[in-house]
């Protein structure tokens, strides 16, 4: 079972560059999320989606964009990368029922230099 798959796993970006973190899930989950984890900290929600075509901001959305054109895919776009975006990024998904288990991808390590 693939679950939640993120690519790339590692990436080094230069300041001002842009990139897209890809996320796909094969569990037919309605909800998908992007979190970031800074060193020594817990995860913080960047954006989330409750279904195809519907996205909303989380706690730390600045500098990011998302889209949800299909149930399976939820890419995260970084525009004009800054050192403050150096972090580990986690994509996650879940069924829409309240309190359901959230399944996480393995994380994408991004360094902006």
């Amino acid at each position, binding site marked *: 079972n693939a679950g939640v798959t993120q690519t790339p796993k590692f990436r080094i970006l230069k300041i001002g560059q842009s990139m897209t973190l890809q996320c796909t899930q094969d569990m037919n989950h309605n909800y998908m999320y992007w979190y970031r984890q800074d060193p020594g*900290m817990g995860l913080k929600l960047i954006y989330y989606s409750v279904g195809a075509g519907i996205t909303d901001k989380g706690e730390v959305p600045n500098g990011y964009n998302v889209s949800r054109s299909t149930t399976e895919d939820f890419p995260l776009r970084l525009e004009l990368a800054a050192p403050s975006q150096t972090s580990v990024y*986690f994509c996650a998904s879940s069924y*829409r029922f309240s*309190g*359901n*288990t*959230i399944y*996480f991808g393995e*994380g994408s390590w991004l360094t902006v230099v």
Partner: protein
Amino acid sequence: AQTVTQSQPEMSVQEAETVTLSCTYDTSENNYYLFWYKQPPSRQMILVIRQEAYKQQNATENRFSVNFQKAAKSFSLKISDSQLGDTAMYFCAFMREQGAQKLVFGQGTRLTINP
């Protein structure tokens, strides 16, 4: 807004001992969910245990159990017979019952099990 606080940045115990990790949270909601996640060095997020706020009975999963005190807004994790493989970061997390299932995480506790 909800907040989750883990007051123990690091803990260390000997193998086979019992260890308790603390978590407090702040919310005005009456119904919600609480979780403990384990994050080993691989960085994978692994669900350890979950608790529904409307349930008075504390959740248990094998060697893992919680002490849920709703009035005190406290949600501690007890690991019995600790094993080397329990070495990891542990995160407490809160989820509202209503709306999108957004997790609010604490800062984490780094647990080391020594042989």
